[in-house]
């Protein structure tokens, strides 16, 4: 990874996470955006197309689409077609419950990845987190998608419940021609309430880090860069990419450093009224974030490997930036335990 080039500042993000709606037909206990009902002020179709225009003009390579549940938007597939016509790759994170043969056929052979969320290898593990019957619906979606030429991953949030089932999830994914992707649990949205109960402990995180080293085909979307071992060094980032390689757009068009930092103090601007290029290059919020230094980590032997870890977890557990990620493998001093109180 060309850190020195990233630090020089890119003209635009490499990818942008776009939460297209708060609407969701599930109420997962760890939902990062506290989704449920659609809300007033979500971007209209015309506004959403303007957002795509702005990002395509800057040659942003990829949209990572999330929500809420993206397929709750009636215009969602039209918007994806529009993004693809503009040469953008899309990665859709979905709960899978609304995917049927018709939707799978429409996504076939497009510039698209699909990530279907599943938080356990059995209904007994998954459904208490994601809702009754959700496991069976995801299996139906995976069946529909497996018949098409679409890159599919099962996306699992690492929790105390999913951790023991990772090997079974790898097998389950392979059964449907999919890969497994594991995401880090962060205490934002409803995750604040379930953090203490669901987040892995330090020992499990260390064990997971080793497991990742032995499963190089499992992807992480860089969400575990701070605990990566040398075996995975070449597979991704060794620092937080927020405001440097990526950022997040909320359903209302608000631009934030990342999906997990959407508190008012991180609002960098609103699309499409404001120009995205101006926000990316001149927003004081982004400039400040790019200059973030985790001073207390700089003398650590792992600093070059993680640069202090995930600022979002540090912020949500300690209510400030510039402090170490409490999930640090080196067991940094002056941080609370992983299951720290969430503000």
């Amino acid at each position, binding site marked *: 990874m*060309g850190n020195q080039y990233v630090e020089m500042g890119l003209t635009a993000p490499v990818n942008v996470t776009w939460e297209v709606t708060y609407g969701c037909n599930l109420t997962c206990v760890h939902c990062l955006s506290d989704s449920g009902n659609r809300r007033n002020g979500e971007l209209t179709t015309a506004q959403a197309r303007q957002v795509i225009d702005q990002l395509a003009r800057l040659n942003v390579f*990829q949209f990572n689409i999330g929500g809420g549940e993206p397929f709750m938007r009636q215009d969602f597939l039209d918007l994806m077609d529009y993004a693809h016509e503009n040469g953008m790759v899309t990665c859709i994170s979905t709960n899978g419950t609304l995917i049927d043969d018709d939707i799978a056929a429409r996504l076939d052979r497009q510039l698209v990845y699909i990530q279907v969320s599943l938080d356990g290898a059995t209904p007994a593990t998954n459904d208490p987190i994601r809702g009754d019957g959700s496991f069976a619906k995801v299996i139906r979606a995976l069946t529909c998608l497996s018949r098409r030429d679409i890159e599919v991953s099962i996306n699992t949030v690492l929790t105390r419940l999913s951790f023991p089932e990772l090997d079974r999830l790898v097998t389950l994914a392979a059964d449907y021609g999919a890969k497994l992707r594991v995401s880090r649990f962060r205490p934002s949205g409803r995750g604040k309430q379930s953090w203490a109960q669901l987040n892995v402990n330090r020992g499990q995180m260390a064990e997971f880090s080793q497991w990742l080293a032995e499963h190089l085909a499992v992807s992480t979307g860089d969400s575990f860069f701070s605990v990566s071992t040398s075996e995975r060094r070449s597979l991704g980032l060794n620092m937080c990419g927020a405001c440097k390689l990526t950022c997040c757009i909320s359903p209302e068009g608000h631009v934030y450093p990342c999906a997990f930092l959407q508190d008012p103090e991180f609002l960098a601007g609103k699309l499409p009224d404001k120009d995205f290029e101006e926000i990316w290059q001149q927003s004081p919020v982004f400039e400040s974030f790019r200059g973030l230094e985790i001073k207390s980590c700089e003398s650590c032997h792992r600093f070059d490997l993680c640069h202090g870890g995930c600022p979002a977890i540090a912020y949500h557990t300690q209510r400030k930036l510039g402090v170490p990620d409490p999930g640090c493998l080196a067991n940094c001093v002056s941080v609370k335990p992983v299951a720290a109180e969430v503000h």
Partner: protein
Amino acid sequence: MSVCKVYTLKNGVQVRRETFGLLFYDYRGPRLYFVPTKDLIEDDFFQGRRSLAELVGDIQERQGWPTDWIEERLDQILTTLERKDLIDGQSIC
């Protein structure tokens, strides 16, 4: 090195200009490649509309560098990009 060639991006690969040079994105990974070409190559060169000979000529005219040096430098870059399966070179002679 034959300069009688054009280059295009492989399927699933995109490129854009940055201050350090070229940033390639490979959808098939997905992977990023940072290529410090400075001002040597513009991203639209990979649309396949201009030959390598034309590019060498443009750089020579703009910078006044020896043609041999320019060709050697471009050869290094383009060979690496081909080896990484990011671009395709086609002879046009």
